């Protein structure tokens, strides 16, 4: 057991090599999306501002997740996610990551979807990976690493461990979102939420908002094309901001008018704030078993995390 902090000084070359590797990784993450075959998702080719993935494009599968009653699926998986978020031990966090990865495979989710989720988290998580080793307060037993000729940069090993734990947990939970929402048609998922006592008004708004997103995306894209055709290029200046403000205003005005007309048309056809749903939920024994399995796994994870401590570095 380390009683006082250990200090290591490494040659400067290692720092430079590490920075180089990080730079390469960053570029790979930013531009590597092209290397994942995206199947039939045409939105990947569009201009990067307006790509919106369809939430339930995998709903036509036949895996254990697809056949699972959506209500129980939601409750069980969200419970497991909270358990996973509470893990404090790297070994158990990695175990959770494994479980998530297996779930992705079992739910037959094409790889580009979870990869896209992971890439979305990179900026936020990188901040932790870079900042925590440098700013975490020193405690006894910490491994401090510094580099020759750069004495003011001290990396705390405990800080890196914490940041890595966050990265693993965030990835594990993010991966689980796909089996959660992509394995049933979106209206079915929302209906499941309604059966779980989410107010019907909120469910209606989720459905409408989700529908409108794609409509507005097209509107925004058209406006954007028009602007670029007239020579607008985004730059770091006040003119760009004024143009963006006007763009936003125009988007709001157009979309508001359009949906106002749609809403009146819906009212004229008897819309009474609900869409008729023909989705029946029938919980079978296997649905409850799956739920119990995941809930049990979550609880087991919590208990193991607390009582079975494997540390990787002692």
């Amino acid at each position, binding site marked *: 057991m380390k009683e006082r902090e250990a200090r290591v000084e490494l040659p400067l070359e290692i720092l430079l090599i590490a920075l180089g590797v990080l730079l390469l990784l960053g570029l790979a993450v930013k531009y590597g999306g092209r290397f994942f075959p995206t199947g039939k998702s045409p939105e990947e080719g569009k201009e*990067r*501002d*307006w790509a*919106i*993935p369809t*939430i339930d494009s995998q709903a036509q599968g036949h895996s254990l997740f697809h056949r699972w009653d959506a209500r129980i699926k939601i409750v069980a998986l*969200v419970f497991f*996610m*909270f358990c996973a*978020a509470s893990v404090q031990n790297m070994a158990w966090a990695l175990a959770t990551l494994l479980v998530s990865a297996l779930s992705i495979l079992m739910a037959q989710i094409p790889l580009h979807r979870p990869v896209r*989720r*992971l890439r*979305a*988290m990179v900026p*936020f998580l990188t*901040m*932790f990976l870079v*900042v*925590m080793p440098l*700013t*975490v*307060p020193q405690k006894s037993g910490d491994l401090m690493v510094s580099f020759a000729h750069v004495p003011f940069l001290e990396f705390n090993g405990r*800080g890196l461990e914490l940041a890595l734990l966050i*990265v693993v*947990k*965030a990835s594990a*939970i*993010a991966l689980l*979102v796909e089996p*959660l*929402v992509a394995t049933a048609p979106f209206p079915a998922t929302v209906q499941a939420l309604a059966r779980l006592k989410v107010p019907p*008004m*909120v469910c209606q*708004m*989720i459905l*409408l*908002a*989700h529908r*409108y*997103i794609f*409509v*507005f*995306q097209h509107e*925004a894209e058209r406006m954007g094309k028009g602007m670029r055709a007239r020579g607008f290029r*985004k730059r*770091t200046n*006040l003119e760009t*901001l*004024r143009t963006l*403000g*006007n763009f*936003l*205003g*125009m*988007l*709001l005005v157009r*979309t*508001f008018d359009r*949906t106002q007309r*749609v809403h009146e048309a819906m009212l004229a056809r008897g819309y009474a704030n609900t869409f008729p749903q023909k989705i029946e939920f029938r919980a079978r024994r296997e649905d409850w078993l799956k739920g119990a399995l995941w809930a049990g796994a979550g609880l087991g994870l919590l208990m193991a995390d607390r009582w079975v401590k494997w540390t990787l570095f002692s």
Partner: protein
Amino acid sequence: MHISDGVLPTYVAVGSYAVSLALATWSARRINPEEFPKIAVVTSAFFVASLIHVPLGPTSVHLILSGLVGIMLGSSAFVSVALGIVLQSLLFQFGGITAIGANSLLAGIPAVTAGWLFHALKGRSLNRHVFAGALAGGWGVFLAVGLLALLLISGGEDFFGVALIALYAHIPVLAIESAVCAFTVSFLYKVKPQLLGMSSASRPGE
């Protein structure tokens, strides 16, 4: 900036859900049933708007725009923002599922308070509206970053450094959002003032 999973202590994540739920219920009570579509519209429009990359030197930032949501919806902005957070998390993984409660708080409370600020200061002239819009937009970011820092700090002193960096990183965002909010308010004032929560009959000069 939306928090991902695994960062917040679980009691903070769960507690944020509870507080968000309470605020959403409060906010929902202030909604006129005829306004459902307007809220859905504002939610989606802002979702789409938040996809825009605003160039900032070598990099680019996404705008939160909660100030503008507050300006347009007033007290019912919380529901709209919370919905936007849910959709952003589900579609983009912009913010983790266990952190939805926390993210709704850090974007929703600024939205509602920015709306109040705007309506208190807007006066009747265009310049007053633009000024109020800039202030509301800036306040939206200011409070959001403050809440973000508070939430991060709840994880203990290990997170102080990250919270500080997040604060510094948002200073340019604050300036940008104030400007964009002001310009948008200016546009809406001239083109469709009803969206700013004011009837066109009260515009001076009509």
